[in-house]
């Protein structure tokens, strides 16, 4: 054995041998974001007695730093994007859906139509809404197909290639017309009035006879979209154990989870819904929208699928505030005391029930106003039309009827030449008054509130 081996001197560095470009070693990390490391709690957040103090929010700092992560701010490895094709016709029968052109497009990974959804119906009261319309179109915002592609733009382009043949049917848009027996049915075989309620107290006809004067008027309110600044958003990921994780902007995740389980025909324990900060809900994010679609697209592709509503989707297909048509008839004494009131409410529910039942009930109970009325009759109907569906929105029917009964009160006061504040004081609930449905009311401060408010904004002055 030789003592010493002569080793050839290495001439190049290891880096050179490997031909490594050092720039490529830089990790691909998100941009740096700075915020102060020492956490200072604002004064407002350290106050314990809440009443009379300024309110702030625990997440306010994150919002201002742009650090709050809404659904659209999240992404997962391998994530793809879904877009929804909408009908664009108010009522029709689907004759044929041709997805072949869309499926051929580069980047398109999967498509989905209504017949592929295990249980294609949902809704918080009645299950009358399809996830994706498969046979009939009930309103122009109905989804008819979905596409998942590697980018949002490709998914949107693919929607253009989907060809659908419709047989146009006669739609109905006016809720009063829709109540008639001869009206075309929105949901065939079901009748357009899907919920009705009556409240009866005393004898209205006798009340009207005993009245000094009676007044009649019709009030109507329009459809209102919530327009949350953050559009509906979800990301679904189907895993190898057959479970699905859904990050969603849903406000009512427990209800949503049950609906997702039902529509996917899966036990609820296989569905995990992760809620995050919601960029405005106002009632419009109380129900599922595309979650089951994204889940199924994820199963088809083995990838996380993100679906964000465009603002157009939002206006066309998310829920809205119910338009109401409200007939009021009121009999009063010479002093302005309400003797008798009759109310008929027609709530235009759009294509699906959603929360119309709840809305109708609340509107009904509140429709007489916060006033003591011996003789009362209220009838209320929720009606299907081929329009964007209505659903939960702040107040659940209360703002609509409030607009009607207060406008009505003003009309009466003007005609009787009574101060509008006074006519309300004469009739307002007091401690122990009974609501239209017989509930005895406690802690009633309507009159005090009116007086304080009138005093603070200078009612007397304003009257001059």
């Amino acid at each position, binding site marked *: 054995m030789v003592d010493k081996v002569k080793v050839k001197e290495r001439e190049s560095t290891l880096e050179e041998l490997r031909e490594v470009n050092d720039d490529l070693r830089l990790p691909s990390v998100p941009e740096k974001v700075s915020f102060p490391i020492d956490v200072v709690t604002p004064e*407002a957040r350290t106050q314990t007695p809440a009443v009379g103090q*300024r309110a702030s929010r625990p997440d306010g700092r994150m*919002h*201002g*730093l742009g650090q*709050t992560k809404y659904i659209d701010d999240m992404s997962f490895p391998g994530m793809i994007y879904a877009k929804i094709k909408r009908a664009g016709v108010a009522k029709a029968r689907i004759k044929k859906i041709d997805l072949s052109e869309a499926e051929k497009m580069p980047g398109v990974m999967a498509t989905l139509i209504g017949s592929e959804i295990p249980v294609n119906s949902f809704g918080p009261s009645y299950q009358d809404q399809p996830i994706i319309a498969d046979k009939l179109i009930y309103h122009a915002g109905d989804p008819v197909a979905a596409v998942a592609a590697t980018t949002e733009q490709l998914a949107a382009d693919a929607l253009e290639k989907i060809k659908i043949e419709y047989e146009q049917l006669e739609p109905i848009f006016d809720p009063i017309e829709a109540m008639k027996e001869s009206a075309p049915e929105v949901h065939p075989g079901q009748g357009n009035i899907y919920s009705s309620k009556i409240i009866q107290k005393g004898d209205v006809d006798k009340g009207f006879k005993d009245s000094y004067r009676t007044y009649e008027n019709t009030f109507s309110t329009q459809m209102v979209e919530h327009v*949350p*600044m953050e559009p509906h958003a979800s990301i679904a990921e189907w895993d190898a154990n057959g479970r699905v994780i859904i990050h969603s902007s849903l406000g009512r995740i427990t209800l949503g989870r049950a609906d997702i389980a039902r529509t996917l025909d899966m036990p609820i324990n296989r569905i995990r819904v992760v809620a995050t900060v919601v960029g405005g809900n106002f009632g419009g994010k109380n129900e599922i929208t595309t979650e089951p679609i994204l889940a199924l697209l994820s199963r088809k592709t083995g990838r996380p699928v993100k679906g964000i509503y465009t603002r157009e989707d939002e206006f066309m297909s998310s829920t809205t505030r119910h338009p109401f048509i409200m007939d009021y008839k009121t009999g009063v004494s010479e002093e302005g005391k309400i003797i008798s009131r009759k109310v008929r409410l027609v709530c235009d529910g759009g294509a699906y029930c959603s929360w119309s039942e709840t809305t109708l009930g609340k509107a009904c109970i509140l429709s007489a106003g916060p006033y003591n009325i011996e003789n009362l009759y209220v009838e209320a109907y929720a009606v299907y039309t081929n329009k964007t569906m209505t659903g939960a929105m702040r107040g659940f029917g209360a703002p609509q009827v409030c607009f009607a009964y207060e406008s009505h009160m003003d009309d009466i006061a003007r005609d009787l030449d009574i101060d509008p504040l006074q006519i309300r004081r004469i009739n307002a609930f007091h401690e122990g008054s009974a609501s239209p449905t017989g509930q005895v009311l406690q802690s009633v401060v309507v009159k005090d509130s009116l007086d304080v408010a009138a005093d603070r904004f200078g009612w007397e002055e304003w009257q001059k």
Partner: protein
Amino acid sequence: MDVELIINGEEKTASIPPETTLLKLLREEFYLTGAKTGCDVGDCGACTVLVDGEAVNSCLMLAGQLQGRSVETIEGLANLEDFHPLQKNFEDLGSLQCGFCGPGMILSAKQLLEENPEPTKQEIQDAIAGNLCRCTGYTKIVEAVADAAKEMREEP
């Protein structure tokens, strides 16, 4: 196509398809998700950022137009020591509720305060006219901007 620009004071380059908007560039290439997509058509102001100091709707600007220009996003406002006075006052007054409009709102206000350190209520309202907020009713936002202006005048 390639674009070189300055984002929050740092030089950056990106290779992007030509139809990429500034909003997409920030959110998807640089993970700066502070600017939000509210409408993607220039109506809501949730995507507001400052380009060469001027508030713009980043959803309406193509990334290609940014060649050589300087962009400031909400992520560039605070540093390791302190918040921007606007951020501090927005937090203290509880000016934001869901917060989705916040980053855009604050950047519009920042441009205002740089040009006009002593704005009237009307001037503040005009400056944020392009930034919709559906939650707050704007009252606390206007107050926070006024308070921040005061603070910045006192200790510049």
